[in-house]
């Protein structure tokens, strides 16, 4: 009994320390600044951005693509590892589910920021036409939000019941909330049967939904004629890129939570090692699709294609391109091949590299293509030949990133980040096995 009490005490949500409180308020302030900048954009029009008739999409879109990509982590870790029966996933799945939910919610919000007429949002439902990839997005994003929410919520039920009990005396109000949310979970056989069946169904559903989400996101670009987007590689390229971005984000968040909550007993080097291998695998797959995407046009040397690849390899965007490719992909692969590279701190740094690289990678997918249309750019202000985000765009975008982190922070504050019930079950299982042996 004592062991289980310690377990609950270790894993139950705790009040933030001073650093946690400062962190939360910083995020709140950045988010509010972003909202203020957005209100200003609505009032003045998108003239406050540095977008123009050629660079008609900017970081709002690349940021959106980044969020969509990161939300894929729920699919890769939770669903795929579940179906492949990888038991080591237990302490990290909830964190993955939280990241997934926060990202997909923010993806839905960021795409609206890019709209010229947000007041006409409802037209998408009133006048929507199925032939437009945007309508596919309008359908799949809410679907994925619901699935992500359920994927987070159903496994939470037993934990919420435990927390209700745990906080009964110390925090009756909070305990009441946990009780309400736990839907009178008693842990009876019938309940457990329904729960495990539901989780299984949702986990399987997440895979096609996640693949569809990433593919539709890729098709937003590859259904257009533009050089650099008009590629049959796009769907697979985006799915593999999303795995990289998602797992990168997961590694970073896991490290921070482990340090903040002192969960070294539960998230061990073994888990980092496994996560590192998974990240290395996804990075390798992504590298493969990158080679497909960039090397083949270079070899066939079609005139328009070569203009595009030259801009990336040696031209205006070369520094960023090589930074992202080498720093965000090749260096992580090399480091992850070594056992020392898969230790907690190196993994955290690699995770950061991968996430930052993934963000800028989306920028490179969106912007350079737009600046090289089929007809030359003439008769427009000189500044329209280039694009770099304005202060408004940066403030709003950083605001959305802060909001995503804020959602994660709040969920981490009030939910057990490591499944309590399942950890207890697994420990019990281990003990009985050991007992049998001895």
């Amino acid at each position, binding site marked *: 009994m004592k062991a289980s009490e310690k377990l609950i005490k270790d894993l139950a949500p705790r009040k933030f320390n001073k650093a946690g409180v400062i962190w939360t308020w910083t995020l709140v302030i950045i988010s509010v600044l972003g909202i203020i900048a957005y209100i200003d954009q609505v009032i003045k029009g998108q003239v406050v951005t540095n977008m123009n008739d050629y660079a008609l999409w900017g970081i709002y879109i690349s940021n959106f693509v980044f969020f969509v990509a990161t939300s894929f982590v729920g699919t890769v870790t939770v669903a795929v590892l579940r179906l492949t029966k990888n038991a080591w996933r237990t302490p990290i799945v909830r964190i993955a589910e939280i990241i997934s939910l926060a990202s997909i919610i923010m993806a839905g919000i960021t795409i609206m920021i890019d709209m010229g*007429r947000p007041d006409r949002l409802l037209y998408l439902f009133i*006048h929507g036409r199925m032939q437009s*990839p945007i309508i596919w997005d309008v359908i799949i994003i809410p679907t994925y939000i619901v699935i992500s929410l359920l994927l987070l919520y159903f496994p939470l039920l037993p934990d919420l019941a435990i927390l209700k009990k745990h906080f009964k005396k110390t925090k009756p109000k909070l305990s009441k909330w946990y009780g309400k949310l736990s839907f009178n979970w008693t842990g009876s056989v019938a309940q457990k049967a329904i729960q495990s069946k539901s989780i299984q169904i949702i986990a399987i559903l997440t895979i096609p939904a996640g693949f569809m989400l990433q593919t539709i996101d890729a098709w937003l670009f590859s259904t*257009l004629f533009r050089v650099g987007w008009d590629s049959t590689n796009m769907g697979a390229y985006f799915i593999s890129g999303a795995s990289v971005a998602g797992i990168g984000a997961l590694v970073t968040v896991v490290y921070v939570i482990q340090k903040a909550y002192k969960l070294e007993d539960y998230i061990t080097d073994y888990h980092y090692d496994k996560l590192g291998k998974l990240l290395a695998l996804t990075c390798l797959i992504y590298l493969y699709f990158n080679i497909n995407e960039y090397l083949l046009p270079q070899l066939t040397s079609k005139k328009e294609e070569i203009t595009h690849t030259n801009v990336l390899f040696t031209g205006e965007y070369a520094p960023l391109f090589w930074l992202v490719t080498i720093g965000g992909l090749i260096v992580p692969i090399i480091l992850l091949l070594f056992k020392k590279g898969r230790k907690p701190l190196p993994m955290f740094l690699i995770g950061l590299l991968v996430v930052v690289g993934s963000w800028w990678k989306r920028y490179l997918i969106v912007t350079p293509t737009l600046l090289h249309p089929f007809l030359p750019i*003439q008769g427009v202000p000189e500044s329209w030949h280039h694009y770099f985000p304005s202060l408004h765009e940066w403030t709003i975008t950083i605001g959305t990133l802060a909001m995503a982190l804020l959602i994660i922070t709040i969920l981490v504050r009030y939910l057990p980040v490591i499944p309590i019930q399942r950890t207890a079950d697994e420990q019990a299982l281990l003990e009985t096995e050991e007992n049998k042996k001895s």
Partner: protein
Amino acid sequence: MEDNNKNSRRKFLDKGLKLGLATAIGGIGLSKITSKLNAKTNNKSGDEMELMTTDGTLIQVDSSEVMEVKHSEDHDKKYNLREGIPNRKFVMVIDLAKCKNALKCQDVCNKHHYITGDHAWLKVYKMQEDEDTAPYWMPTTCMHCDHPACVTVCPVDATFKRRDGLVLIDNERCIGCRFCMAACPYSTRVFNWSEPDYGETSEITMNMEMKHEGHNSIEYTGMPSIVGTVDKCDFCPHTIKENKLPHCVTACPNGVFYFGDKYEDTVTNGEESVRLSKLLRDKDGYRLMEGLGTKPSVYYLPPVDRLVDFEDGIKDYKEFESVDKPE
């Protein structure tokens, strides 16, 4: 129990249907009777009228039986903004051999469409395919494609293809996602990044107040411009509805633009009218980026046998400006 239930439901449906049918028949009968009664009340004025039937035979009818009927509203003949002018297919031919970058087309287009952004709807490109080929001037309008990529991707049906060939934008519908702009390979679409700056006392504002009282009208599709929506060349539906040529065609001093109807197989530049098919055949007409399968409605005649020197146009060439700012 269940059987009973089903039976009673069936009966109810049966009775309902019969009752409905009876009512309908009764209604029709009643209306027939009343109309007959109506006709009988002012029966036989004694005046006989001679009328000709549609197949040409003369008949005599009592004048009281002659009634005025309303013309049936023929959908094919009614001008509908989204359907277009029936039985027409508008095309344009641009003769690159004649263009010397006089930019009158652009000026008049900017003026009549109240363009205040930085990107004119009609642009004249300085083109040179290769180092070894001669440079030439190439005006571009919206291509009004028959397979318009922009229309395919529009999520809310704001941009649409009409039966008369025009691709237009409903800027009361546009949500400003700019997907159509990304889809268009001709970079023809422009966006109203800010509130159009017409100036309160400018000719534009006054014209607009007089002509359409500040509202969008069918004749002026997508005008005036609205912040946060997409604009582009519209082939001037307001002039072609009045059987006039688009502004760029009439304004061009060199007769570069030909406009006409593909079904009639004629195009005119205001001075001469020519057979479209013959013109395209004789002068090797082509369309921009044919390989993309967009099927443009704008044809180009190659810049061969040039009547003018390319250099003449250089003095008017403005690399960074296509719209004059209002004073």
